[in-house]
C-alpha cells in the first residue's frame, strides 16, 4: 500500500455531557491511502460522525483526545495557526443537510467562490468561471444561471451537488462525507454517489465516507469499517463484508435490512438497543446482544486482530467465520 494520507491511531475522544466527560470513541484506528475510499458504517451514537469531527478538528469545546491523527507527517490534534489553515485547505467536508451549511441569503455564486477569492486571491471573474466549470463537473449544465440563484430556488439534490462542486474548487486531498445523501431521494442519492465516486477516482482524492447503510458504503468504498459503541469492530474489503463478515455485529447489520426482492417471515432482529461508548459494559460492548457470546466475551475488550486481510475485534472471529457466512447467505 502507498503511504497513507490519513492515519488515525488508537484515537480516544471524551466529550463533555452536562459537564461530565464521556467517552465517545475508544481506540479508533484507521488509515486511508491516496485516492482510497474508506466507508465508516454504524448506527446513531456509534461514533462514526465523531470520528470525522475529530479528523476535521471540529470536536465540541471541552473535548479531550488521546492517540494520534496523522496527516502529512503531523499530528492533526496539535496543528496551530498557518499549519492548521493549510490542513483545512486540504480537507473538504460534505454534510447531510446542505441547507444547514449554505447561507440562505447569499447567491450560489458568492457561496461557491468565497474560499477561492478570500483564501486563494483569485479574482472575481476567474473565480466565477471556475465555479461554473465545477458545476458542469457535477452534472449541472447551466452553471452560469445557477450562480445567480439563491439556495431556496434549488432542490436538496441540486444543492448537495453545489456543495460538492464548491469543495472541488479548492482541490482538496481528503474528503470527509458525513451521510451526504441521507436527506435525498433514492434516485438523487444514486446520482450524487456516482458523482462522488467519479470525482474521487479522477482526482485521486482520499474519501472517508460515513453512512448508516452498509450497501451504500460498499458501492463506493474499497474497504469498510463497521463501528459499534465508539470502536471499530471490523475493517474489511467492502465486497467481502456481505458474504463473509468477521464480526457478529456486521452479520446482524446485513441480515436486519429488509430486501427489495423478497419478504421474509421475520427479520433477523437481535434484541436490545445499540449503546454509546460510555454506556458500554466491560468486555466486548456487543456481547450482551450477541447470539454467539460466551463467558469470555464479557471479561475484557477484544483486541483488534488480523483475520483474512481484515481487522476484527472479536475473540471468536476465527471459529465463527463459517457460521456468520451461513447466516448472511441464508439472508441473501
Amino acid at each position, binding site marked *: 500500500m502507498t503511504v497513507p494520507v490519513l492515519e488515525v491511531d488508537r484515537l480516544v475522544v471524551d466529550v463533555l455531557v452536562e459537564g461530565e466527560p464521556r467517552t465517545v470513541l475508544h481506540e479508533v484506528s484507521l488509515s486511508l491511502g491516496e485516492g482510497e475510499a474508506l466507508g465508516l458504517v454504524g*448506527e*446513531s451514537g456509534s461514533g462514526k460522525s465523531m470520528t470525522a469531527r475529530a479528523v476535521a478538528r471540529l470536536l465540541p469545546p471541552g473535548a479531550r483526545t488521546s492517540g494520534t491523527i496523522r496527516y502529512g507527517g503531523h499530528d492533526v490534534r496539535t496543528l496551530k495557526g498557518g499549519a492548521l489553515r493549510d490542513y483545512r485547505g486540504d480537507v473538504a467536508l460534505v454534510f447531510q443537510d446542505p441547507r444547514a451549511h449554505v447561507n440562505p441569503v447569499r447567491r450560489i455564486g458568492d457561496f461557491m467562490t468565497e474560499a477561492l477569492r478570500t483564501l486563494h486571491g483569485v479574482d472575481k471573474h476567474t473565480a466565477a468561471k471556475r465555479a461554473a466549470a465545477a458545476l458542469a463537473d457535477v*452534472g449541472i449544465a447551466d452553471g452560469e444561471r445557477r450562480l445567480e440563484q439563491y439556495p431556496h430556488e434549488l432542490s*436538496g439534490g441540486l444543492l448537495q451537488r453545489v456543495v460538492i462542486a464548491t469543495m472541488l474548487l479548492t482541490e482538496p486531498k481528503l474528503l470527509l462525507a458525513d451521510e451526504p445523501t441521507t436527506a435525498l*431521494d*433514492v*434516485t*438523487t*442519492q*444514486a*446520482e450524487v*454517489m*456516482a*458523482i462522488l*465516486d467519479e470525482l474521487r477516482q479522477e482526482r485521486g482524492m482520499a474519501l472517508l465516507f460515513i453512512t*448508516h*447503510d452498509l*450497501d*451504500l458504503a*460498499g*458501492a*463506493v468504498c474499497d474497504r469498510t469499517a463497521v463501528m459499534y459503541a465508539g470502536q471499530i469492530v471490523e475493517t474489511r474489503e467492502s*465486497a467481502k463484508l*456481505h458474504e463473509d463478515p468477521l464480526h457478529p455485529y456486521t452479520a*446482524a*447489520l446485513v441480515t*436486519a*435490512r*429488509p*430486501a*427489495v*426482492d*423478497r*419478504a*421474509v417471515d*421475520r*427479520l*433477523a*432482529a*437481535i*434484541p436490545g*438497543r*445499540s449503546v454509546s461508548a460510555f454506556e458500554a459494559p466491560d468486555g466486548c460492548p456487543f456481547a450482551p446482544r450477541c447470539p454467539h457470546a460466551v463467558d469470555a466475551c464479557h471479561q475484557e475488550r477484544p483486541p483488534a486482530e488480523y483475520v483474512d486481510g481484515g481487522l476484527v475485534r472479536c475473540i471468536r472471529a476465527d471459529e465463527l467465520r463459517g457460521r456468520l457466512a451461513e447466516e448472511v447467505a441464508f439472508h*441473501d
Partner: protein
Amino acid sequence: MTEEPVLRVTGLRREFGGVVAVDGVDFEIPRGGSLAIVGESGSGKSTVANMVVGLCAPTAGTITACGRDRSRPARSAKERRLRGREVQIVFQDPYASLDPRHCAEQTLDEVLRLHRADDGKQQRQARVAELGDLVGLDARQMRARPRALSGGQRQRIAIARALAAEPEVIILDESVAALDVLVQAQVLNLLADIRERTGVSYLLISHDLGVVRQITDETVVMRRGRIIERGPTADVLAHPRQPYTQVLRDSVPHAGWKPTRALRALTEGAQPS
C-alpha cells in the same frame, strides 16, 4: 361476493394555491390488508395520508373508511371520535410525535378516556398495561418521559397510541424511516405481529422499497401527484412495468450495486404513459 373494503379512496385531488399536489388517486384496502404508497418527495404520498387521516381536506374526491364517508371535515365531537376509531396514524419522527411532558401511560390513558368513556380507572390501567405488552415496553419505560427513551422505544409508544382506539386502519407515514437498521427490524417484526393478532389494516407511506416489500401485500407507485403503477407488491417490485418504477428499484443500494448518473437522467425522460 367481495367484502366491503375497509378503506376506499376515489378520485382524490388536492390543490395548494393552484398547484396540484394529488390528482385522481384511487385505491382500496381490504379488511386486514396492507397497501403501500411508494414515491419520492413531492410525489404527493404524504398529502394522501394526511387527507385519509383527516388532517387536510381534499379539494375533490371521496374517502370512505369502514363504510362511512370522511371526505369532509368532522362537524361534531362525536363524529371526530368515531373517525378516531376508524383510522389512526404513526408519524415518521419519533422525537416529535409524543408530548414531551407525558409518559406513555398518560398518553395512552388520555386516548382511552376519550374512546372508552364507560371504562373505570382499573379497566383503563389494565388496557394500558396490555398495550404496553403488545408493543414490548416494560413498566419502567411506560412511566418514563419521552426524552429518557430511545427512538425505537418512542416509536413503540406511538404505535401503542395508534392501537389504543382499536382502529381498523393504521397509516404508517414513513414510521420506520428514522430508525437505525437493527431497531427498524424489531419494529417491522412488531408491526407484522400486530397485524396478525389484531387484523388491523396498514396503509404504508414509504420511499423504502425494502420496507415496502416486507410488510405490504399491494403497492401503488405515485409520481407528481398521480398513481403511475399498481399491483401486488411482489410483482411491482420484481417486474415493474413503468420505467420510473424500475429506476426507483434500481436506485436502492444492495450488495454489488454501483451508482450511476444515467439512472436519474432516465427518470427525467420517463414520463408516465
